[in-house]
């Protein structure tokens, strides 16, 4: 059986920066429990001698010439931002105190 508890889901949600509601935590606990039980079968398939594959088509190299190319302008980079001051993204307090 899985180790998915409401407390664990709440912790994972905080790591993932999603402020789940109590109801969502409850529902995800049961859904994720079933999913984790199903996918856990991968653990018994491959032995220690099998290497992991992270990428389907291995490519080595891929270096480009170290020259300056076109980049986004400041205006373009800020165009989709929820808030900015003309040269920087603006956010609320980062240290947990009112600024």
């Amino acid at each position, binding site marked *: 059986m899985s180790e998915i508890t409401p407390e664990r889901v709440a912790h994972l949600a905080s790591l993932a920066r999603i402020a789940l509601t109590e109801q969502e935590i409850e529902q995800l606990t049961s859904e994720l429990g079933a999913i984790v039980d199903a996918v856990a079968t991968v653990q018994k398939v491959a032995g220690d001698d099998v290497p992991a594959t*992270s990428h389907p088509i291995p490519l080595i190299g891929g270096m480009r010439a170290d020259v300056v190319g076109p980049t986004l302008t400041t205006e373009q980079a800020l165009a989709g931002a929820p808030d900015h001051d003309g040269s920087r993204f603006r956010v609320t307090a980062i240290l947990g105190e009112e600024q």
Partner: protein
Amino acid sequence: MAGTDQSRTSGNDLTRTSAAELSTLLASGDVSSVEVTQAHLDRIAAVDGDLHAFLHVNAAALETAAQVDADRAAGVTLGALAGVPIAIKDVLCTIDMPSTSGSKILEGWIPPYDATVVARLRAARMVPLGKTNMDEFAMGSSTEHSAYGPTKNPWDLTRIPGGSGGGSAAAVASFEAPVALGSDTGGSIRQPAAVTGSVGVKPTYGGVSRYGAIALASSLDQVGPVSRSVLDAALVHDVIGGHDPRDATSIPDAWSSMAEAARAGQSGEALRGVRVGVVKQLDGDGEGFQAGVRQRFTETLELMAKAGAEIVEVSAPNFEYAIAAYYLILPAEASSNLAKFDSVRFGMRANVTGTVEDVMGATREAGFGPEVKRRIILGTYALSAGYYDAYYGSAQKVRTLIQRDFATCFEQADILVSPAAPTTAFKFGEKLDDPLAMYLNDVTTIPANLAGVPGMGLPMGLAPEDGLPVGLQLMAPARHDARLYTAGAAVEQLLEAQWGGPLWRLAPELG
């Protein structure tokens, strides 16, 4: 198939004309791109209220078409698909249209650059018709997870059009667009093609640029074509494919022409001596496969054998674990990729007070739908300390075993075949409350993504029990996409000879 003469007569005929035929008509001056584009915009206006294949229709489409016509009149040398309209899945960044990936968190967002594939179709002078609907961030098999409401299947409006690229498939199947772009992480091009009677190709991983495709799972995602014929898919593939220095996983090799490969398949002799491997684990006898899917698959194999193909049974024992491995690797990569939606640089910001972390949490809570949250939390779990080796690590080893299975199968066969989806289109709501049942719908398509090999879905008839389209899947070794187009065009020709024309002629009238 509408002939050249009839095609001039009405917009209805133009929307039923293939991209290859439109190319000829446009080149000869028999029709203008404005006429072709207007016919498709009229069709969208007539039927998209019922279908909801489009999230955004391009207001500049006619203007773009007029520029192509003017250049053609001025004697400018144009590519094969110049002036041909195309629909674009909303996962792809477009500098002139919103790109939401089906999510509320990106509502109205206009990217500062075009995806490479979009830039290439513009360079080929194709005419973007608009952006098509999809499951949010391409997570789903039905478009029911789109934040903007589902797309309907043109064959039966009470059923799903497949997913995640249900919008592109429905647009093509309902004659709103001759061709479209999709993206395929676990079947999101091939499964919608199967259930809407369309053609869809997931190229070799690295064969088509991912630059500007809003990432779901970076080691699995591939952009590819959706169409009503194998040749049309090949023509689009030739436009979008090839090395892109902006994508570090893009294969630097030169590629042969997919259109030439498709045309070679139409010779009638293309299947002679080809070893066609039926993957035992996906042969339709397993649990969850519909009887009518199995029946059409068996008949299609017989047809291929009669045309000279050598049908061999091959075994890929580790495909049994493909879904399990996929639903660890995908959420792990997605949880990382979707971290960028942080309410700071682009997209939505929830209107709450507090620290930047509070705002981030509230934004992601409000901006993501249930399936996205489910997969992010699952991926965060699979990657967390103490579980990483057991889940993500084990899944990556299974991936190695699946690649080895493919290698063994391709020693015995030139191409592999299976049904493209285990069932025909299911009803809305049927699997929405059972994520695992939804995931099982991808059983046939996921192995190709895990191994990076190319796959094609194409129509192989209607299921006798419900009259809905059934898809065939072809798979080839990595970098051998051309083989799919040759074999696919050959199978298509055999089937259409039997049907007396393309399958889409049997689609119900809409609007």
